[in-house]
């Protein structure tokens, strides 16, 4: 075995050992700061500066199952907007996660509304990517357009969903 090959292997082995350490530290880093998916989300925020401030204030909704975003169809809603009520202007990016609404502290959108129940309604995509709203047995009911929901109902784009004094809708 030539001297050169052995030297290359010796140095290569040390490099591989250090590479392992670097990879391990990368894993620790992504454990600390969330996954790389989050960064892609923040790049999108820069593209829409008018909303970046609000979205930055609501980062938890953007983490997690963003891989589902890839299968969104054309014309599917991309965000949920609160158009009336105390939370007017809040947007939540729709990325395949279930959005819960209510006064409970762990809801995705915490409604500060005396007429809302703690777990009032949830909005989720079905298997085809169609967004569905479902009332969770609230006291005062959830309204889609003018009709009170009795079952899980698909949400047309732009249709107002009324919960107490709050109105939300899905937009592109």
């Amino acid at each position, binding site marked *: 075995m030539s001297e050169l090959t052995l030297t290359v*292997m*010796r140095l290569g082995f040390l490099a591989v*050992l250090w590479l*392992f350490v670097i990879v391990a*530290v990368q894993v*620790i880093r992504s454990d600390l700061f969330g996954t790389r998916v989050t960064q892609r989300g923040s790049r999108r925020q820069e593209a829409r500066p008018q909303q970046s401030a609000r979205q930055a204030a609501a980062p938890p909704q953007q*983490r*997690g199952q963003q891989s589902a975003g890839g299968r969104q169809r054309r014309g599917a809603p991309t965000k949920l907007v609160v158009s009336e009520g105390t939370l007017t202007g809040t947007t939540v990016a729709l990325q395949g996660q279930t959005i819960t609404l209510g006064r409970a502290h762990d*809801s995705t959108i915490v409604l500060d509304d005396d007429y809302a129940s703690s777990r009032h309604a949830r909005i989720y995509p079905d298997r085809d990517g169609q967004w569905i709203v479902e009332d969770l047995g609230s006291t*005062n009911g959830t309204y889609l357009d003018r009709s009170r929901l009795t079952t899980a109902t698909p949400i047309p784009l732009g249709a107002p969903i009324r919960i107490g004094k709050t109105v939300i809708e899905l937009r592109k």
Partner: protein
Amino acid sequence: MSVVTNTTTIGAIEAPSRRNTELALLAFAVVIPVFAYLNVGLAIDGKVPAGMAGYGLGLALLAGVAHLVVRKWAPYADPLLLPLATLLNGMGLVLIWRLDQSPRLIALAKRTYGAFSESAPNQMMYSAIGIAMFVGVLLLLKDHRVLQRYTYISMVVALILLLLPLVPGLGADVFGAKIWIRVGGFSIQPGEFAKLVLAIFFSGYLMVKRDALALASRRFMGLYLPRGRDLGPILTIWAISLLILVFENDLGTSLLFFGMFVIMLYVATERTSWVVMGLLMSSAGAVVVGSTASHVQSRVQAWLDPFECLKTAPAGSNMAYACDQMTQVLMSFGSGGILGTGLGQGNSDLVQFAANSDFIFATVGEELGLTGVMVFLLFYGLIIERGVRTALAARDPFGKLLAMGLSGAFALQVFVVAGGVMGLIPLTGMTMPFLAYGGSSVIANWALIGILIRISDTARRPAPAPAPNPDAEMTQVVRP
């Protein structure tokens, strides 16, 4: 209010389990030792070593079994612990195999024992038992809090394990240190297992007693001095570790146990005074024993000035051996330089006795150089970091203390061995976790990693859905 202000939804999103990351790292951790194996074979014989495929497959099989068990029974566990341990174990196998090839060591074994047997296959078997132990811990220990029930049983078991080598007929005096017992044809080092059991006792005990130890104290010269009756446990542990030191002639084990206790006391009570007292007591003990026990004395001489002591020590004496080893080890590290001589091309087998166990780090130092030594220390550091991180993330005080105690013990062991081999502290007969040849050590350390993985699985598991808020206001009803 125009923004969503709550942040608790982080918990509601399903936490990533990181099992695929672990699998990728594991594959990497299996490939590196195979590469090293190839490296050694090419350097020594100039051809691809014969056992490479079998060895690589064996390691991959063990790693795969461990990974599947973690995936099934501890899905949220830390992704780094298993790959790091596998890598260290695999590298240990390669280094032991490399020393098996050394003509000098073969000649030495033939001269002393009349026959030479390879150590690497044995170590492979121990690794398999170690992985089995790891799997057993994960299968049997569904919740680490169960261990809390066995606090005082653990104390008794640990004491028995520690004192076993002193039982006549069972204990074996191997080269001065009495830390082995012989059962059947096997010699076992009960101290390695006592480490785990003792950590369970310390965490259970300190969890109950920490308030008394932390709060009931008087302030004196800037230090909080504990009450006399609270000093009882620390004095007992100190006495026991001194007894080990005196009767078993083992500096490392006693340092490890006392150090682990002081670390856990500090973590449990946040009182610096315990650390100060611990340091004072251990140095007092070390001075007393260092000036009386001859076995320890020769180690201290070899540490202070190995080259001078080699000249003055009477030939054939214990001290001459100790000094000779130390000089050879230092020469190994020195000739390794920054980049090392390359695997299989060093002369670290000149250390002769225990080259593949206590002094295996000298081989790393010579053949991989400073770069390799640093990377190995980083591997150990990362395991310890993940352990401490697990302790931080654990949700129950017992789990916190246990994870901290186990990683503290692991850290102390690495420090004692690496420090001893490099001449920072007197040499003690302990083994580098996972790297060195020795069944007890490998098996016990795999069990340690198993417990850490169990705690980290519990700690990183997403919290169950929160209970409905009890102080939620009543919902008003719209009356049309």
